[in-house]
């Protein structure tokens, strides 16, 4: 393991550095823009009008507004509910159950179910939103096949139960990722360990709960990390389905951020929201990373 002993590399350092240059510029831009977003959060910059040119520093005013005005805390709560039920309960648990169940079944069933789940995941966000709006509308699939035949008047789900509808749509869309990850994770659990537990008289439930789950704990933490952050900042599906409404029922932080920044034009306040989201996501990530590292 001698370092830098590769003459075709050391002899061409200039070329290599030159090759890295475009990436360095673009990464620099990314860091610069991120820093800029931070800076904006202390200003009253607006999208249009006088304040888009003559903005001024306002200190922590935007951050005070997060807590004193209505909107942010409500959105945070909506986001927490959305993340908890769609990502942690829905996608993760369902994905794991599917991965665990499908391991024992024939390969044809397995591929059919896999393809069905993948279709949701592969579908562009906007198409998924369109599809689910139609499915849950007054004349949609759920009403025509379930509600009306049972003798109830049709329900306009997307208006009356907006948050549950977007939550289910997101479960439908995102379960495949968790499934794939857990599937790969369960493949890494050695067959002998599971067989040994079986010989020792462990029930299927015990085999999963006491043997497989502890082994794949790092994968669970990785999965949680990814899907929590994604769902926390997920925008297109909800925005296209409800735009945050009715009222503010489905206005998650990402939608709130968009509405404040680009509909109302409060770029300064919008940046403060994104900084707050960044902090929340950062804390969550640290929590999951600890879960990931901790050897037990």
């Amino acid at each position, binding site marked *: 393991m001698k*370092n*830098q002993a*590769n003459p*075709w*590399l050391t*002899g061409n350092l200039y070329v290599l550095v030159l*090759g*890295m240059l475009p*990436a*360095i510029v*673009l*990464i620099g831009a*990314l860091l*610069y*823009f*991120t820093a*800029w977003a931070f800076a*904006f959060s202390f200003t009253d910059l607006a999208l249009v009008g006088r304040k888009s040119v003559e903005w001024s520093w306002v200190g922590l005013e935007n951050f005070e507004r997060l807590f004193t005005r209505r909107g942010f805390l409500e959105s945070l709560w909506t986001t927490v509910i959305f993340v908890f039920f769609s990502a942690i309960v829905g996608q993760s648990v369902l994905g794991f159950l599917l991965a665990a*169940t*499908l391991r024992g*079944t*024939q390969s044809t069933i397995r591929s059919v179910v896999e393809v*069905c*789940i*993948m*279709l*949701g995941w*592969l579908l*562009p*966000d*906007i*198409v998924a*939103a*369109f*599809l*689910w709006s139609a*499915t849950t509308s007054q004349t*949609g*699939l759920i009403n025509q096949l379930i509600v009306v035949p049972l003798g109830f008047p049709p329900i306009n789900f997307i208006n009356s139960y907006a948050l549950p509808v977007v939550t289910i749509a997101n479960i*439908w869309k995102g379960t495949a990722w968790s499934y*794939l990850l857990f599937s*790969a994770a369960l493949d890494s659990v050695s067959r002998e360990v599971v067989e040994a537990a079986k010989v020792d008289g462990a029930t299927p439930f015990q085999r999963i709960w006491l043997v497989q789950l502890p082994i794949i704990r790092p*994968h669970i933490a990785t999965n949680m*990390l990814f899907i929590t*952050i994604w769902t*926390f*900042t997920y925008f297109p599906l909800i925005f*296209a389905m409800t735009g945050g409404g009715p009222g503010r029922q489905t206005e998650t932080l990402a939608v709130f*951020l*968009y509405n404040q*920044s*680009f509909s109302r034009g409060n770029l300064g306040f*919008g*940046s403060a929201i*994104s*900084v707050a989201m*960044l902090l929340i*996501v950062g804390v969550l*990530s640290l929590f999951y990373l600890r879960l*990931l590292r901790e050897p037990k």
Partner: protein
Amino acid sequence: MMDNQPSRLTAIALAFMAVIWVSPFSWLILNAFNPLSTGQLEIPRAFGFDNFGLAVSGNAGRQFFNSIIIAAGTATLSVVVGISAAYPLSRLRIPGRNAFLWTLVLLRMLPSAGVLVPLYFAAQRSGLLNQLGVIIALTILNLPFTLLLLKNFFDTVPIELEEAAYVEGASLFQIVTRIVLPMSRAGIAVVWFFSFTGAWNEFLLPLIFARVQDAFPMSVGLYAAFGQQGAINYGFLTAFSILYAAPAIGVYFLLRRNMNTGFAGVGVKG
């Protein structure tokens, strides 16, 4: 291996789930192939491809091309920039490179809406509120992930091969193009298609960058069309949705095996 008794029950439960999972598609397909579509869930009384004809002509056709330009442009630019930086990153012992890459990836997992405001301003100043601007912006946003994946793929190419080639008198360019790139072909394909589908599906950035209807990609076009109240042509919209979804889905099944290894690598290498 597994106990056989519950397998029929599980099979039924799984089949049930699969049916539920694909059931929303029924509406999409029934309407798309029905020239007289009304947006209702019903057995079509007519069958035809008229809707698809509408969905590839005129404005819709232009949006298709816009999407292609954005997606292919982003994917190609990401891969080219990514390769030329990931190879040195993989081979030179730059201190802290892994920590740096992971920091960047974490940074990118933050809400992209946050970086959007500065991106918008920068694009506005430099006159890049157009396709090229979207491509560059998406490349910037993609790059951390692209770099990390490509570096991981390059790491798996044994350095002994490169040494042997060097001894035989190959130049750096030859080593990279004849050995490193062919050997990480699958990985590069995965990264290209990841970026392609990502950019193809992208909605928020083009929504803000595309100021005129001529510049809309399919995602924004579809959103704009079904957001309008009033006379909505459901037949057209459903056919358009299917055409829009097809490349993203098709690419996955084309590259299924590669993709799965790619996912596993991303998820577990943490």
